[in-house]
């Protein structure tokens, strides 16, 4: 058969790529979050929300979507810090914030439940 060798090379290269992609292991996701930790992270984030929103308002005066977006950036930083510090799953931290809001878990203040519609800035 003509061109057997180059065809075999293509096949081998494709198989190596597929096998590697299918079996590669990324960073470990961390441990599942306990109920206690879930309440703690919700409480922590809810208590910081007002301050973070004020900082966001200073950073993006007059632009409601950008303010909200900047608040979420800060919320994201806090959630990730918590997850990496406690070695727990980020997914569970995200879920705890949602569960806390929906089930009205006790917190110093209630998080804002709405977001302004997406109105992107001219440039980033």
């Amino acid at each position: 058969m003509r061109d057997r060798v180059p065809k075999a090379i293509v096949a081998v290269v494709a198989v190596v790529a597929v096998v590697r992609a299918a079996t590669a292991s990324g960073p470990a996701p961390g441990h599942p979050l306990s109920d206690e930790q879930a309440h703690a992270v919700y409480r922590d984030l809810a208590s910081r929300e007002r301050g973070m929103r004020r900082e966001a308002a200073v950073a993006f005066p007059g632009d409601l979507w950008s303010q909200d977006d900047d608040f979420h950036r800060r919320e994201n930083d806090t959630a990730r810090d918590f997850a990496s510090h406690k070695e727990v799953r980020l997914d569970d931290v995200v879920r705890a914030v949602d569960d806390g809001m929906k089930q009205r878990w006790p917190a110093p203040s209630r998080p804002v439940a709405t977001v302004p519609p997406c109105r992107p800035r001219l440039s980033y």
Partner: protein
Amino acid sequence: MPAEALVLRTWRKIVFLARALAARTWWRLAAFATLAVVAQLFWLWHAGAMVDYRDAQYFTLFEDAARRSVVDHHQLPLWNPYYCGGIYALGTPSARFAAPTFLFTLVFGVLRSSPLVAAFLYFAGLEGTYRYVRAHGAGALGALLAAPIFALSGFFPRSGSFEWVNFLGFELLPWAALGLRRAFAGEVRGAVLAGGATAWMTCFGGTYAAPFTLLVGLWELFEAAVALRRDRRKLARAFALGAVAALVGVGLAAVRLWPIAETLAASPRVVGANDAIAPLAIAEMLFGKRIPFRGDFLVGVLVLPFALLGATWRKSLFPVASACFFLWLASGYGAHPSGYAMLRTIPPYTMLRNPERFLVPFALSYAVVAGIGFGKLEALARRRKWSREVVVAAMTLMCIDAGVLVDNGWAWQRGRTLMAAPVPSPPREFANARGDRWLAAYYPGITRGTLSCFDDYQVPQSSALRGDLPHEEYLADESAGKVERRAWSPNEITVHVETTKPARLLVNQNWHPGWRASEGTVVSDEGRLAVDLPEGTRDVVLRFRPRSALGGGLGSLLALAACVVLWRKRGLALSAQLGLAAAPLAAPLLVLALVHEPSRPKTIYTIPNGEPVAQAQPPADAQTLGVKFEEGVTLEATRITLDRKPDGPTLDFELDWRLDGPAPPGLGVFVHMEPDKGDSVNVDHVGIATVAPLEALPANMTLRDVLPGIAIESGKTYKIYAGVWRARRGGDRLRVLDKGSATVDQDRVLVATIHAP
């Protein structure tokens, strides 16, 4: 034999072998496949990890939402409920799932498929560039060595490192260009190839790739028109086959084009500042600054001598001209006159930004010219025996350049910060969460949508959606009865409703005209999906069946069939070929005529208290200014209220504008708050009251530009200046023609001096 002669002989053998390898398709493909995979080494090595970059979140979510629709719910990915409160998946410009590479996603999942898709597209880009360079008259070896200049150029690994996988669609640009070149030469298969490649790019979320292809195509058309100017019959055929390519492209991509056009018509993409890129910065992006060479659009400086040599040849005239054209565009507003500024006045280029991205088509022209230059060197070598060594050296240099490009790609891949991929939770009822767009990819896994979102157009999103509801479907008037969800999937929701009086059923998702209900009337309730129902007990089934998906999908399928016929029956008459390419477009037109879909409610732009932006006159307590600017813009009045909140003082700030006629596109308002100490604060904005640009608002009305809750610092005195500038054009300020009762300084109006207590 002396050692030097032996080395030389070995090198010559290598050149001979390389030439033979380049000319033999399977050997060349084997080389390109290996190079494509090697270039993705680090990405493949860490496949499955999440890239810690904000855009990676929503690009991953778009693809994952489509995958979930197909795999978990056995539905077509029409509605994406996981983002912004629900968006039209096919109408999301940068989503890539409608391209054939979605098969990788279905099999391997989103994050594991990304490097495979990248390797596949690199491979396609290498072979496409090779063929395109050959089509310009370069030799096999020159084309082989030139292929990595485009296909491995810095733009691609940079895009990959941000998970901008949709930008890798640019790898199909040489195929589109090659197809057009062949079409203009009279081959119908070329037209199919060009249309197919462009449609693939469009379906792959090629918000830039497809419009850029049009420009590359115009250069090909120009070249063909010059070459065929003396042969009218061939010229007519070239134009006709160009039309076939365009029709095939539009037909194949109809499934995305119609929904995207609908989305952008309803939700403008108001982005792009006055970018100006200096020539030195462009050179740095293309060639790097120092060893190791790094660059956002790196093509390599080592092949520059070949490009310069190639540029002196007559057959390089058009590639050199197009390279210069794209360099000109890439300099943005920095060039005078600015081609980019002109282009931004023509749809769809009005919606583009980042002019440096024009360096991608430049890279293709650069590869062509370098390939031709190498060929010229080979020709010289054949004539003069002494210069054979130069060919060996040239080949070595071009191989080193490819190595530099691979190394640059690896650097981008190694530079990524990786985080753990989302871990799916046990299935539960879907609901919208307030969410966080910076973590958007983590929401579908916990069966939640994120209301907090970003895309670079004004997403049609209701501000009434909530992330803390006990149930996602409920009655507006709770006393009217009760509601229970019976089934949920992205495109179909079934709820059991018992009402004792007519009632409005609210769904905590965005409304879209494609939603239909088995009972009652679908309406938009403050942008939310809602159904007005009579009293009684019933199961209400809400289905998302947008007309554009049906019409566009049919058009695409028919175009695919037409492509098969056009490809196989090359001998058809030109009129039949044109008819065959155009026929599929009848399907969308028929669906448009026969399938009813409610039109979107007229957008009424409002200020935060719910009043319309456009009113008859300014508020009674506003201070009149009467400042007239160029372009018929007047700053009628201003109103500023100081508020002391527990967190610190804030300003409620309002500028009242009036237009004498329709405003030219691209204007923005600038507001400079200059304190007596410390840094200035800018409150520049394009949307009046942050909701709509001036050009979208009516003339001869007061346009209330209300900006509430601007945080200021206690103890400072602020001078507040405002004016109008060409924010999405050249960046210059509109001149003040009449200063009215205000103080004006450098075409900005002093609207107030405020002391923050």
